[in-house]
């Protein structure tokens, strides 16, 4: 059987999902249909690990919160994912992490919660995080287009069920990218300042030599 692709989706889109698709038999994979028509069962996320705590002392089940620029993912790692648990225990927070996880929906009393069941979690760096943001942005834009044009069956169903506000998602993606762009420009300014400082010092040294 073909392995399920690890989808790139921002927290906002995933957390707004409530519709579950059970396709066929008992062993058939269960999918979450997002407001932008993504059928997903596994995700790959890079973001900031903000919380990591054992749900109850000695329970061996850890709750984590990982944030992206649009919101945060909540995940649970227990003894059934020994590899992920082993890696999690080695990771400090806050820090940037990457993770691959199965997507689950929990039915609360008032609403449904989307949670992640990580299969692996590892430390990452800002470059990997930025790359992920770009991927997620690209994928989100594609999905917005699909819903707009009613391109796929899933896109049509999503629009019907969620009455998705596409402009809202467009704004979110744009904000995320603008912020990333600003950060880069800030970074460049800092680098330029440092460079100027070096040059000044150099000049000073040379003058010093001739005095």
């Amino acid at each position, binding site marked *: 059987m073909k*392995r399920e*692709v*690890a*989808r*790139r989706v921002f927290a906002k889109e995933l957390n707004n999902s409530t519709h579950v698709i059970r396709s066929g038999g008992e062993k058939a994979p269960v999918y979450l249909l997002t407001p932008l028509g993504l059928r997903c069962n596994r995700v*790959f996320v*890079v973001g900031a690990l903000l919380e990591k705590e054992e749900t109850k002392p000695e329970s061996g089940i850890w709750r984590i919160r990982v944030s992206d620029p649009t919101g945060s993912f909540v995940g649970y790692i227990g003894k059934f994912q020994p590899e992920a648990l082993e*890696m999690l225990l080695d990771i400090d927070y806050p820090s940037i*992490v*990457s*993770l*691959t996880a199965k997507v689950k929906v929990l039915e609360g009393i008032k609403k449904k919660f989307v949670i992640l069941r990580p*299969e*692996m*979690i*590892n*430390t*990452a760096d800002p*470059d*990997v995080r*930025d*790359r*992920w943001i*770009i*991927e997620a*942005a*690209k*994928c989100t*834009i594609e999905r917005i287009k699909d819903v707009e044009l009613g391109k796929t069956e899933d896109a049509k169903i999503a629009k019907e069920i969620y009455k998705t506000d596409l402009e809202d998602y*467009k704004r979110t*993606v*744009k904000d995320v*990218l*603008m912020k*990333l*762009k600003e950060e*880069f420009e800030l970074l460049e300014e800092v680098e330029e300042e440092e460079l100027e400082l070096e040059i000044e010092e150099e000049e000073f040294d040379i003058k010093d030599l001739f005095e």
Partner: protein
Amino acid sequence: MRIEELVDRIYSIFKEYGVSRKEIMDRLKLLIYEFKVPENEAYTTVVNYLLKEYKIPKYEVLAPLTKIAEIGSSGRVSVKVKVIQLWEPVSPSISQTGLIGDETGVIRFLIWAKAGKPEVQENKSYVFRNVVVDEFAGMKRLNVTRFSEIEEISEDVKVAEVPAKVYGEVEFIGSLVAIHQNSGLIQRCSQCNRIAKGGNCIVHGKVKTVDDLRIRGVVDNGIENYEILMGEEVIKKLVGIDLETAKKIAQENLERKAVLDELKKKLLGKYLKIVGFLGVRFFRVTYAEFYKPNIKEEVEKILEELK
């Protein structure tokens, strides 16, 4: 469909065999007007009749001799080729796989074990008759089935120059989202090279083993994914760990698993650009590097498109 169109279609297949339009027209008219046979039945009946009457082998018509450069993305063809390269089959369901070529190009081929064909050899020329064209991972491929024929020929087929980056080698960018358990410093059976966990080979039982370093995992770009295999050379270039280093790590930590843990820390969740060969089950990586795109440029490009 007008009867003239049916005639045209059949004529285009058989004109080279000296069949006349009139003969086709007469047969079709007889079937359609006299016997009230449906058009598609009439078409098949006339084609079969002509094949038999003119003693034309079926595959010549259904799978015409085609130059590699002219092969479409599906259908049946026959090709006159030289076997350029044979690759190690990755599954027992495959008898042979590799690269064949003629003067117009090269293409991947695959002989299924069920086809029951004698083996072909590198640098020999053959006519592959009635092979099925399909696409695998975006690349055309010729499949030899039990309905195909392979005939060795004495003619030395000239082959188009194979590009330095061998055709069949592909590039993929994605995140290494999983590393499977049987990765790291592993033991192989000294007789058959299979993985021999704890010194036990599933075929040869308790055996002498040879150490090896490899990664089996999944590279995923959010749209598609590949099961990948990475050997010592690739791992060494990527993260600086070779077989000797791996053995040292295992010795210092008193367990082989330490090597796997180290590889996981260095590679899991990282973006890689991989180059290699696509098999039926695995992407065999021949080169890998950490993928470092120009984020700023990419952001600007997407923002521009969003305007």
